[in-house]
Each structure stands twice: as C-alpha cells, then as structure tokens.
C-alpha cells in the first residue's frame, strides 16, 4: 500500500533528520543528536526492510517507481525506482551508514552533531543517486554529494585535509560537468521525450553520437571508480579523511562510478563501449597490478588500504568490460563476469569499511598511521585482531569470505577470454595477499615491542558491535552468496543484453 512512497520517504527521512540534527544538536546535550540519529536509523531500517521484502527480483523493469513533474519548463521529472542493482546498493548504503552513525555515537567533540548531520546528508543524496530514474535528478544528487563530503574531509580530517578535499572536489567536479552536457544532449534529442534513463536504452544513436556520449559518461565515472590513471585523488582523500568519511568514501562513493557505468555508459552507447573494451580491460589490469605494487610500498596504513581499493575497483572494471570480449557463443561467461564484478563491489564495500574502521580505531588511540610504529597488537587487542583477520582474508579473496566470490567469477571469465589476461588478473590474489598479510603481520603479530601499544585500551561497546557486524556480513557473503546473487542476476542479465546489442 505504501509502496509508492517508500523511496521518497527514505530520502526525505535522511534529509529531514540531517537538518534537525544540525539545528537541534549541541555539545551540551549530546543525546538530542544521538536520539534523532537513532530514530532516523531505525526508520531507515524499517523502510529498507519493506523495500527488500516487497522487491521481486524476477519482475522486469523498475519497482517502487515514483514519477512527479519537477521542473515543468525543462521537462525534468523527480523520478525514482529500483531494480536489482539499485536495491542492493541502497541496502548497502543503509547498512554502512548505520555503522557510521554508531561510530560517531560516542564522539565528544564539539561538532559531533554537525558531523552526524553531514553524514546523513550524504546518505540522502547517495540513496537519491542510486534510486534515480531521471537523469537530471541523478545528476543533482551526484553533484550534491560533493559539498558534504568535502566539508567532512576538510573539517574533521587530518593534516593534509585541505589538499585532499581540493583534489577530490576539482577532479569530480570537472569530470561531472561533461556528463551534464551529455545528459542534456540525450534529453533534448527529438526521439527522447524526457530525461528518463531507461527510455534512452532503445535510442538509436550513430557512431559519432555514441562516441560523444560514451566519452562524456566515461570521464565522469572513471574518475569516481577510480580507474587508473585518474585515481590520484583517492589516496589523498582516503588518508586524510576521518574514519567515518573514509568508510563512506570507500564503501559507497566508489560504487557510484561502477553503478553509473552499468546504468548509463554500457546500455546507451554499446557499440563504442565494445570498441573501447580491450583498452579499458587492459587499463583495469594495469590498475590491479599497479594498485597492488604501490600498496606494497606504503608505510601509511590508510594509504595502503586506499591503493588496495584501487586494485579491487580495477578488477570490477575488468569484470564489467570483459563482457564485450567473450567469444559470442558463450554468453554464460559474460553473465558470470558481470555478476562477479557487481558482487565484488558489494563485498569490497564491506571489507574496506571494516579495514578503514579498524585503522580508525588504532589512529584514535595511538595517533599514528605509520605501520612501523605498531607491533604485537594481537596480545593487547584480541577482538580487533580477530575481526581484522576476517577483513584481511576477505581482502585477499580467501574462499569462505565475501571477497572470494567476486574475484573468482571475474578471474574465471578472464581466463576463458585470454589465458594471459587471466594470469595477470589472478595476480590480484598474489599481490593482495602480499600487502594484506604484510600489513596484518606487522600490526598484530610478534612481540609487543612499543610502549605505547601496551596499555590495552579496550574497545568500546559501539566499536565491538560495528566490528562484529562487519565481520559477520563479510563471512555470510562468502558462505551464502546466493541470496545476493539471486537479487542481482535478472537485472544484470537485462543490462548485459542491452550492452551487447548494436545500435548502428
């Protein structure tokens, strides 16, 4: 009965709670902000549950659709709707954001309420982007994320935060502007009635138009993914951001790029995508190997995890663009590749959220991110060590953890296309094992060597909850991947079919 309003109420709840927390929250009465945030979390949880329960994966098209005329003069609608991949990403957003709210909970700093408000604002716009079915509404939410993100990095981050925020802002803004041109072009073609994205899928475009469309989209999304060589904003942003912002950045904002590729780039300009696919697959491979090698050389924990994110996202892009390289007879390989890429997105989100959160705990206690300043933490912080072990194993792709399924599917498909590409793609396992186990070993194993590591400042309640939740979800993704796969299979098959068509 309420199906028509669920998505709008989700976005509206996040917006209103963000505004209220900003207005009402104060450092003298921290429970105001915390109470509001708790209510907002519970509300979002209920709506998310309703969405999950009411969603039918096998039904084609978008569900929970809402369509209202927004700007009459320019034919822009406020249109939202979810399909398999949107819904998975929205549930992921709700999950990670509730962990973020829990993480900010015990903060005593004077601006904790404003920080909460900023994070909830990011949540509102993220859900708006994932749920949007009108292109200009998607663009509005996409750009609107920028200001809260740079504020959260710049105000609550560490030493070089201004530079990191600047780089993030300029890179993303410049990339997105060309996407705006492309969206306006597509929406004003004679054949397209308005800006609805899925109405553009059957649109006939000639080669030049497709080239223009693909380039515009690709620049914007490749910067967000981030795809080598447009990745240079990521290490700075992740390193200098505070813990919760790192979690949001790594887990959610990076997924915007790949989601955009699946939603916009591939179905609307399939021929040019096919033409560019070999180059982009090679770039993905370079990203995997480059990310892994540079991660090995890092002395800063967060930077290491940031480069690991670049490597994993390289694998995702490889999985997405591989569908154009498979031998035509075996479309099963293409389907598996796409499923693997998307699964990798979700699993990497949980893994990197866990990794960044752990590093945040350590930084908060010991005020250093340098790996060589730590040793033997397993003695003093056993729960942290156990959970981090699960995140580390998921990062390197051990079967049984979430990171395995996606990697396996993608590497399996790559091997079927070309054995040498498969070999290079499999290097991701080798490299991620190297840097992850190096990181883990240096931090947790060995004797307790440094005096500042000795006082075992035990974990707070909220931190334990977050760690255990993340570890459990990572394991459950690895042991029971079928529920997620069943949700996304029909949508990905549909997108695959659209991407493999030819429009010329």
């Amino acid at each position, binding site marked *: 009965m309420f199906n028509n309003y669920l998505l709008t109420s989700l976005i509206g709840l996040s917006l209103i709670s963000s505004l209220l927390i900003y207005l009402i929250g104060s450092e003298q009465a921290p429970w105001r902000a915390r109470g509001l945030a708790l209510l907002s979390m519970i509300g979002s949880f209920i709506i998310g549950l309703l969405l999950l329960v009411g969603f039918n994966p096998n039904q084609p098209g978008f569900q929970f659709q809402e369509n209202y005329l927004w*700007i*009459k*003069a*320019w034919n822009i609608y406020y249109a939202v709707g979810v399909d398999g991949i949107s819904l998975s990403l929205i549930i992921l957003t709700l999950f990670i954001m509730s962990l973020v709210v829990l993480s900010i909970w015990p903060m005593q700093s004077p601006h904790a309420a404003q920080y909460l408000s900023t994070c909830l604002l990011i949540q509102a716009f993220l859900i708006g982007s994932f749920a949007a079915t009108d292109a200009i509404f998607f663009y509005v939410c996409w*750009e609107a994320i920028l200001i809260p993100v740079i504020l959260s990095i*710049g105000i609550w981050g560490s030493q070089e935060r201004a530079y990191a925020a*600047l780089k993030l802002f*300029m890179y993303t*803004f*410049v990339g997105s502007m060309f996407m705006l041109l492309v969206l306006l072009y597509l929406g004003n073609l004679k054949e397209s009635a308005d800006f609805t994205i899925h109405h553009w899928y059957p649109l006939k475009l000639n080669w030049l138009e497709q080239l223009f469309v693909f380039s515009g989209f690709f620049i914007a999304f490749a910067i967000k993914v981030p795809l080598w060589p447009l990745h240079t904003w990521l290490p700075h942003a992740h390193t200098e951001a505070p813990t919760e912002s790192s979690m949001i950045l790594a887990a959610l904002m990076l997924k915007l790029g790949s989601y955009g590729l699946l939603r916009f780039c591939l179905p609307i300009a399939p021929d040019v995508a096919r033409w560019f696919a070999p180059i982009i697959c090679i770039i993905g491979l370079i990203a995997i190997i480059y990310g892994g090698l540079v991660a090995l050389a890092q002395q800063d924990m967060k930077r290491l995890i940031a480069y690991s994110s670049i490597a994993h996202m390289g694998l995702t892009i490889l999985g997405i663009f591989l569908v154009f390289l498979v031998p035509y007879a075996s479309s099963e390989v293409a389907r598996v590749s796409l499923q693997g890429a998307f699964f990798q997105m979700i699993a990497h989100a949980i893994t990197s959220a866990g990794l960044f959160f752990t590093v945040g705990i350590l930084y908060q206690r010991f005020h250093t991110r340098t790996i060589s300043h730590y040793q033997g933490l397993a003695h003093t912080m056993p729960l942290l060590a156990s959970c981090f072990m699960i995140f580390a194993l998921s990062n390197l792709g051990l079967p049984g953890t979430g990171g395995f399924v996606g990697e396996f599917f993608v590497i399996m498909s790559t091997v079927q296309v070309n054995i040498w590409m498969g070999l290079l793609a499999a290097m991701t396992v080798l490299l991620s094992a190297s840097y992850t186990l190096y990181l883990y070993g240096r931090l947790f194993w060995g004797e307790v060597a440094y005096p500042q590591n000795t006082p075992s400042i035990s974990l707070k309640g909220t931190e334990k909850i977050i760690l255990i939740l993340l570890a459990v979800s990572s394991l459950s993704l690895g042991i029971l991947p079928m529920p997620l796969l069943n949700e996304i299979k029909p949508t990905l098959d549909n997108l695959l079919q659209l991407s493999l068509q030819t429009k010329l």
Partner: protein
Amino acid sequence: MSQLFTFPPTIPLFLLTMTISILLTDLFLPKHIHKSYWGKRFIYLLSILTLLFMETWIALLYPYTTQQFFTGHFIWDPLTAWLSLVLIGISLLVFIYAYDDLTNRSLIVNDYYLLTLFSLLGMLVLISAGSLLIVYLGLELMSLPLYALVSLERRSNVQTEAAMKYIIMGVVASALLLYGFSFSYGISQSLMLDQLSPLLADTTTPLLLKIASLLILVAFLFKLGVAPFHFWVPDVYQSAATAVTLWIATVPKLAGLGILLRIMALNTHALTISGSSILLVFGIISLVIGNLIALVQTELKRLLAYSSIGHLGFIVLSLALPNTGYKVAIFYGISYGLMITMVLGALAQLTKRGLDIRFINELRGLGNQHPSLAGIILVGMSAMAGIPPFLGFLAKLGILQLLIIAKLYSVACIVVMASAVGAYYYFNIIKIMYFETPEKASLPSYTPHYSFPLIILLFNAIALVGFGVFPDILIHYCERMVESLLLS
C-alpha cells in the same frame, strides 16, 4: 485618487517625491533628533518603508497589460512590472544589509540611502523606456549617483581614484551611446524604440544602423561590466565600501539587463557577424577573462568582481539566442542577483562584527568563529559555483540546455570548462573559511545573537535552496516577463 493609483507612471513619480522628501527631511531634521537612536535610523526606515509601499503597489496592479503613456515614451508591460518588482525587492535586501556596514565605517548613512534611491529611480525610468531619449535619461540618472557613491569616504585616495576611473569611462560610454542614438535617429527619423524595430529586424539593414546598434550595445555592456569593457569593475568593487559594492554589483546589472533585453529583442539580425551573434563573442570573452583572472586574486571583493564579469558573460551568452535565451537570461540574472547580494551582505555583516575583510586570507577560521555567516558565504559560494541543489546550478543548466538545443556544442564546452575553472576559486574560499585555523588567536570576541539583517540573510539563503529545488514559479514569472518581447 484611485485613478492615480492605477496609472503606472505615478510609480517613479512617487519615488521621486519620496526621495526629495527624504532629502529635505535629512537636511532640516533638528540636530538632537539626528543624534538619537531613532533619528539615526530614520532615513533608513523611511527608505525601506518607501520601497515596501512601492512593492505592494506594483504587486496590486496585477495583471499587467502592455500600455503606453506619454505618446509612447513610457512603456508599462509585463517586463517593466516584474522587473520593477525584482529591482525593488533586491534593493530592499541591499538596504537592510548595508546599514550595519555604513554605521560601522562611520560613513554618512543618509547620503547612501539618498543616492541609492535616486539611482533606483533612474533604473525604474530606464526599464520603462519607450524612446531613446528616456533610455538616456534613465541611464544617466542611474549612473551619476553610482559615481558619487564610489567615493563615499571622502578622504580616501583609493576611492577617489576608482571613482575617477568610473566617471571617465562611464562618460565615454554615454557618449558612445548618444553617438549610436544619433545614427539611429538619423536613419529611422524617430526616437521611438518600436519605430526602430522593423528596420533592425530587416536583414538588409543599412551599415550605419548596424554600427549604431553596435555602439549602443557597447555602451550597455560597459554599464553591465562585460569584457572587454570591464576594466572599471575590479577597481570600483574593491575600493568602494562594501555597502556601495553591494548596490553596484546587484541592482544596476538587472536594470541594464532589462533595457538590453528590450533593445536586443529588436536587434537580432543587425548584430550578426557571418550568421552568429556578436553577443556570443562578448559572452565567451567575458567568461574566459572573468574566470581566469579571478584565479589569481588575493583580495575578496576583486575576486567577486571578476566572478561577476564571468557570470555576466553567461547572461550575455544566453541573450545571443533569441526567445528562449531571453527567459534564461532573466532567470540567470535574478539568481545571480540573489547570490551576490547574499555574499556581499554577509561581508557587510562581518564589518559589524569587527572584521573588515579585504584579503581572502582574512576569512580564515570563519567557520568556527562566526558559523552562521560562514554558512551563508558557503551557500553563496556553492550556488555561484553551480553546485546542486542551489539555484545557481539550475541557472547554469538552463544555459547549457539552451546551447545544446541550438547545437552550439563548442560554446557549451567552453562554458563547461569556464565553470570548472571557476569552481576552484569558490572552493578556495570555502577551504579558507572551514579548513584552516586563524593565524592570530585574537579575533575580536563576539557573542552570537540574531540580528534582523542576519535573519534576512538566512531567508535569502533559504530562498536560494528553495528556488533551487522548486524553480517552477520563478521560471514561470521569467516567462511572463519576456512574453511581450518575443519575436513572432
């Protein structure tokens, strides 16, 4: 009496009467009342009441039909009516924000309000002009008080220098305007604008008329501050008191836009060079110059000056495309007016709190010290950069859509790149306010309290967000404004 009320030319007449009354009151008010609390604010309040009265008066005259008075010299059509409403509305905002800045700089408050009221009178005459004579009358009445306002601090050397630059360049521009007028009178044998239009719309306009149009255009572009006629803008904005910059940067631009619309609506064929409008060229030059030079500025008002040159480049660009372009131009003009009024208003309020901001670096740490004003400047900067969900984004969207529908893809790319460049210096200000701590720990202490201008600033910011999310009503009224100008 009621006939006088519904007779539109009474509106500027009323303003003239009130302004002269305010002048006489100011001159002959007894000294002891001048010093008292309400005496100091008397002229300020009287000016605001005048504006409020006029605003309601014009609003009550709805619906607006095209009427001509004084044998066509005075035109009252939807453009005049709506634009008068906008002008008076923004003047109200300016008056409210400026008071604190004026008193804190110990400037003569009453002179400011008198000069601005005279200038407003000139603007109202300008946008209701039906003949070349009234255009010139309104333009001069608008500009002369502006020249005087720039040098409000009589002892200041920089202000005198800026005022001299402004006067001399402004007088030359007026001379060009009259030159163009004389040519067009010579050819059309009439001063009326609507006698001019059939000649200009004809594709075989004589060369002299094309030159006349160019001269007239150049004069107005000078008044607007469009490159390459922009050289007065940075010096005047920087040297004038913040209250004066607040006036010059906002209201004359909209009035200039109004009269430019009226003249351009007749002019599309006359001002083309091999098919494309010369306005495109001026627009692109303005965009590029404004955004590039703003990158290297270290003083805040100078940066805002160059950014306004850039924004006017956008407006001029959309004027180049007839019909839909006019609507987008007015929409962008109104959104720009709201944004820049808000930013300069916040700066004026900062003066009251003891912070006379000249250099951008002086904004350091404002996010902590003065959160509400810093938040307002944040909203203003984001809106000007074109970030959703603020109004500035929709204005840029309108222009980009216009360019893409007209198939001017390379111009659209230039607009996009200029916006991207512009985003840097807006971000820089946000960065300095929020991400850096102040150098000297001894900023003037301030206990937060809500004052009336601050509340109006907050409403201004809410309007930017509100119109950014629900622009339909604004777009609707922009359409109403230009419908009388549309070429059939």
